């Protein structure tokens, strides 16, 4: 929301709050013939305005208007101003104090909220770095070792041995590439105020690109694709969402033991596109489910067993990317076995089908 509309909304909120309290007071006065409630209701109104609006302006304005309204309508002389009576000045001061203090409190709350979000982001980044620096060491050691072996023993090694070592270097390098890509995505999201740039992307083209890339890495794994026939355009950072889907698919290949089917579905519901990836593999144990998107799923569970495909990092990146798109990613075990990952993105309104 930009500044101007915020300003208008706040003004509207103040006007309606004062309007309601004013007529409530009129009604109460008619019914109970007592005026003890009047200041309380106005104080409540001022409190609401200062709490809900940005800055101090509307709070102070509402307190001033309230004082005038009370003075004009509910105190002797009725339906006339009497601005110099000590009662009026005193009530004005009280109202002012209420509005300023409420304003100060809410501002403080908002600042704290911001700090908390920052700490959360910082924590995520630190987790990620810790996990990654640990993970980078393994492939780097292997690359360094393999290439040194080849260089130092070139004549002693058989052709097969050399090929094997080189192929391993290639595999490790490919893994490093994907890891670095994940890291870059996160720094792009975290980059302070730099927002992700959402560009309208055609769903079909996105899915096509994802499947194409996926088959480059995993030529043997088929993916069943179910997407709507209609033309669907979704504002998104295509590069990042592509990566989310790739990470989830890759995750299934690496971790869903016993998987025979991998299905990528996109459904069009309530002006949102619902992405889901499901497999029929071994599922995820409940205790790991909670940590799935935190980046904390590290080697504590499976130390030195040779698998370095750390799902924690990929999935925490997914979660961060989807969050940056104003949505949330979910994982759940399916009743018949297997896991489903899902998230939704808002569609672009398209009327002109031409």
């Amino acid at each position, binding site marked *: 929301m930009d500044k101007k509309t915020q300003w208008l909304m706040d003004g509207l909120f103040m006007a309606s709050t004062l309007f309601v309290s004013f007529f409530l007071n009129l009604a109460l006065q008619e019914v109970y013939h007592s005026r003890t409630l009047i200041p309380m209701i106005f104080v409540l109104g001022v409190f609401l305005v200062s709490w809900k609006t940005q800055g101090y302006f509307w709070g102070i304005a509402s307190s001033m208007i309230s004082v005038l309204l009370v003075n004009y309508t509910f105190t002797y002389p009725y339906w006339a101003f009497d601005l110099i009576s000590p009662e009026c000045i005193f009530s004005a001061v009280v109202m002012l104090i209420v509005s300023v203090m409420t304003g100060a409190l809410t501002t403080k709350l908002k600042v704290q909220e911001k700090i908390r979000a920052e700490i959360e982001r910082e924590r995520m980044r630190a987790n990620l770095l810790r996990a990654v620096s640990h993970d980078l060491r393994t492939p780097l050691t292997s690359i360094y070792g393999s290439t040194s072996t080849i260089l130092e023993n070139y004549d002693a090694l058989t052709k097969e041995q050399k090929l094997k070592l080189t192929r391993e270097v290639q595999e490790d390098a490919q893994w490093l590439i994907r890891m670095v890509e994940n890291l870059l995505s996160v720094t792009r999201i975290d980059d302070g105020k730099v927002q992700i740039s959402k560009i309208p992307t055609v769903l079909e*083209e996105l899915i096509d690109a994802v499947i194409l890339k996926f088959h480059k890495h995993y030529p043997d794994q088929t993916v069943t694709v179910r997407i709507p026939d209609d033309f669907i355009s979704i504002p998104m950072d295509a590069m990042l969402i592509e990566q989310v889907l790739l990470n989830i698919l890759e995750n299934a290949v690496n971790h869903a033991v016993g998987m025979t089917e991998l299905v990528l579905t996109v459904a069009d519901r309530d002006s949102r596109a619902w992405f889901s990836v499901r497999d029929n593999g071994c599922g995820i144990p409940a205790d790991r489910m909670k940590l799935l998107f935190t980046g904390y799923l590290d080697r504590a569970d499976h130390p030195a067993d040779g698998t370095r495909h750390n799902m924690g990092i990929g999935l925490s990146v997914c979660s961060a990317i989807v969050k940056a798109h104003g949505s949330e990613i979910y994982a759940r075990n399916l009743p018949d076995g297997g896991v489903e990952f899902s998230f939704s993105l808002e569609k672009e309104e398209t009327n002109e089908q031409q």
Partner: protein
Amino acid sequence: MSNNKFKILVIEDESNIRSFVQTMLETNGYQVLTAVTCRQGMMMFSSHIPDMVILDLGLPDRDGLEFIRMARGLSSVPILVLSARALEEDKVAALDLGANDYVTKPFGTAELMARVRAGLRIRMMAGELKDGLTGEFQLDDLTIDYSRRVVTVADREVKLTQTEFNILSLLSQHKGKVLTYSTIIRSIWGSQDDGSVKKLQVNMANIRKKLGTVPGDNRYIINELGVGYRMLDE
């Protein structure tokens, strides 16, 4: 022998990348010239007149885009851009300036060689293109008959609208080359406004549907997300 080898100029400041690209190209029978800076590349370009240029965009002395601008002033030599990690704006800028294609780092050698072959084919075809739209285009089981304006897939005729046919034939004439959204829009509709990209995307969706392509098994046209489209050529 060595005289009829294609000459390829590689402008890249990272020595390791330069060295492996050079080795790769030489093993595949090309003659390779190398330059480390943009300035050196420009000098090599005008003195050796290569058949193709492989250009890194991030050069130490000047922006690689300047090289494209200079080279396009002189010739239509195919330019293949190497761009670091997926920055769409850079790619689009390079393509709009006249680069023929791009490869994103890190790239595999197979991918690079395919793009080089495609680029050199464009060079060989360049003469034929000016003769207007006659003849046929063939890709897998897709055939485009330019003069009769008929498109067939596996010998079955595909009914396309005027616009759809124009887009398809434009892409086919530049097969192997990425055409950016704005390039396509300019040559199909002439002018460009806010809704143009959406209009193009809707047309492309219809073309895909009519050609019967399925996501993930796109045999004719590659979607370059956020950049444009490319007709495959092998």
